[in-house]
């Protein structure tokens, strides 16, 4: 005789509860994420995405990379090109100045007492080196010629420009440009905020403050916090400026750009930006001409820069231009020099 199993109302309820509990447990196991791998679950308004701006129209890219070489340094700070017949490449870093041949072969090294922050090559291949708050002059063989006076405890030299007997040292610490003579004596200071002279003052949020002297005899200086390049006379009069803040390709992105710039033989400007790593060409009036290299060519650079969150003073690119018009970019995150040459005709875009 078969035994009949009676399922009473209570037992049925217990069975249902147990089954629901098992289903709930399995669902929770697969749905609830305690590892964080499924992300925060926050909406799109909480995301910060610059990927749209990392793409550059290929027609705007006017240069191509022909070579890169490692500096061999633990830390790099600045790059400069030789003048006249001297086509060597000079890189400042660690506590040395390294001289490379035009094709990147290491030629010699000058030992310094303190870490360099900037350098330039003057007449007769004299090398002017800026440390944190003073300048030292060397000949091309590495013999120290002179050490100039300290510029104060707050000084932080970031760029040097020379025109005949005029030496200019950009000081990011004091947000000023020191105008010195060829022996290091102070002539005047340029750029201090002065409403009566219509001088806006420099806004330098991070230690990137670059200067150069153009063929028209004006001193050009970046004002990164105002997203522009300004022009001053040697006497300190503010003449004009160009540049504007925007993520657009023809402007300067983020909070403080451009970080560095250099002059091409035709008088155009090569600018470097950080954040969205871009190297671009502008003419003397500030009209955008084209791109040397965009974010897609600095992927490894940006990856390393983001890892270097402990040292924001050395993530910006530095740039120099040699006599042939080759653009020399110093990548201080990867400690390498990248060389670009022009590949086609420019397309001028009004800002």
């Amino acid at each position, binding site marked *: 005789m078969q035994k009949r199993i009676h399922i009473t109302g209570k037992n049925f309820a217990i069975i249902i509860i147990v089954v629901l509990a098992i289903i709930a447990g399995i669902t929770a196991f697969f749905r609830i994420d305690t590892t*964080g791998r499924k*992300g925060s679950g926050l909406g799109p308004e909480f995301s910060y995405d610059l990927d749209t701006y990392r793409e550059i129209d290929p027609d705007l890219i006017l240069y191509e990379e022909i070579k890169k070489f490692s500096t061999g340094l633990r830390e790099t700070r600045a790059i400069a090109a030789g003048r006249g017949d001297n086509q060597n490449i000079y890189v400042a870093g660690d506590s040395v100045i390294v001289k490379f041949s035009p094709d990147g072969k290491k030629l010699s090294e000058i030992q310094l007492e303190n870490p360099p922050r900037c350098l330039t090559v003057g007449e007769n291949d004299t090398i002017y080196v800026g440390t944190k708050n003073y300048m030292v002059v060397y000949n091309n063989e590495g013999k120290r010629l002179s050490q100039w006076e300290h510029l104060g405890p707050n000084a932080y030299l970031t760029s040097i420009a020379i025109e005949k007997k005029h030496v200019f040292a950009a000081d990011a610490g004091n947000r000023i440009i020191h105008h010195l003579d060829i022996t290091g004596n102070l002539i005047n200071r340029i750029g201090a905020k002065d409403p009566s002279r219509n001088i806006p003052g420099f806004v330098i*949020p991070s230690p990137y403050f670059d200067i150069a002297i153009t063929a028209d005899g004006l001193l050009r200086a970046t004002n990164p916090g*105002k997203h522009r390049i300004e022009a001053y006379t040697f006497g300190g009069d503010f003449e004009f400026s160009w540049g504007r803040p925007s993520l657009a390709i023809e402007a300067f*992105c983020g909070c403080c750009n451009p970080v560095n710039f250099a002059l091409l033989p035709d008088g155009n400007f090569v600018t470097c930006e950080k954040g969205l790593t871009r190297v671009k060409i502008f003419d003397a009036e500030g009209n955008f001409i084209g791109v040397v290299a965009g974010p897609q060519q600095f992927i490894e650079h940006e990856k390393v820069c983001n890892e270097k969150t402990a040292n924001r003073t050395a993530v910006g690119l530095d740039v120099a231009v040699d006599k042939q018009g080759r653009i020399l970019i110093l990548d201080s995150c990867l400690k390498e020099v990248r060389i670009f040459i022009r590949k086609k005709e420019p397309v001028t875009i009004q800002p």
Partner: protein
Amino acid sequence: MKNLSLHTQQNRREFLRGIGLATGLGGVAVVIGLAAVRKRPTSVNFGCSDQGLCSKCGLYKNCPLPLRQTVWQIDPYKCIACGNCATYCVLEESAVKCVHAFAMCGYCELCTGYFEAEPAALNSGAENLLCPTGAIIRNKIEDPYHEYIIDEPLCIGCGKCVKGCSAFGNGSLFLQVRHDRCLNCNECSIAKSCPSGAFRRVPANQPYLLKEIQQDE
């Protein structure tokens, strides 16, 4: 009918027997549990010179020595501002908040931790501000300096401002666990979900890991 009544009595008896058994077992469990909690070693010398052993010590939550107590904190140099701090905390409102290191700030007029990367105007219009909850207040002190204040009840610890500041600026905005809010869970839910391993235990008398200005030579 008689059989039904007997069946009902038997079910009632079984029910009461079950209740009694459950109560008895539960009581025994409570007694054992209380005994386990009350039983504390009198000695503090558990080889706890290595603070990594603190969490294994029965004393650590009630350790009389301040140095031995530890709390959770975010290493700002490892944090990638993924947003998990906003949603994985056991609290309704996350204990993780943004903080601002004034000394590191570049005081940019177009602050990318405060404004959208491409603001329509540099004003406090909601469409221009980066923070989705409006938790960052900017006050002008004198040109070019601004003061940034984080309204903590509004801040959910999403880290969007941290990303903006770090992308272009000096990284002076970063996330920290606020210990006036944190429950100091033995196993922090955010720590478990952190993809960069930025969470770690720090001494309770030094509960914050703050960014500092890079001292350049």
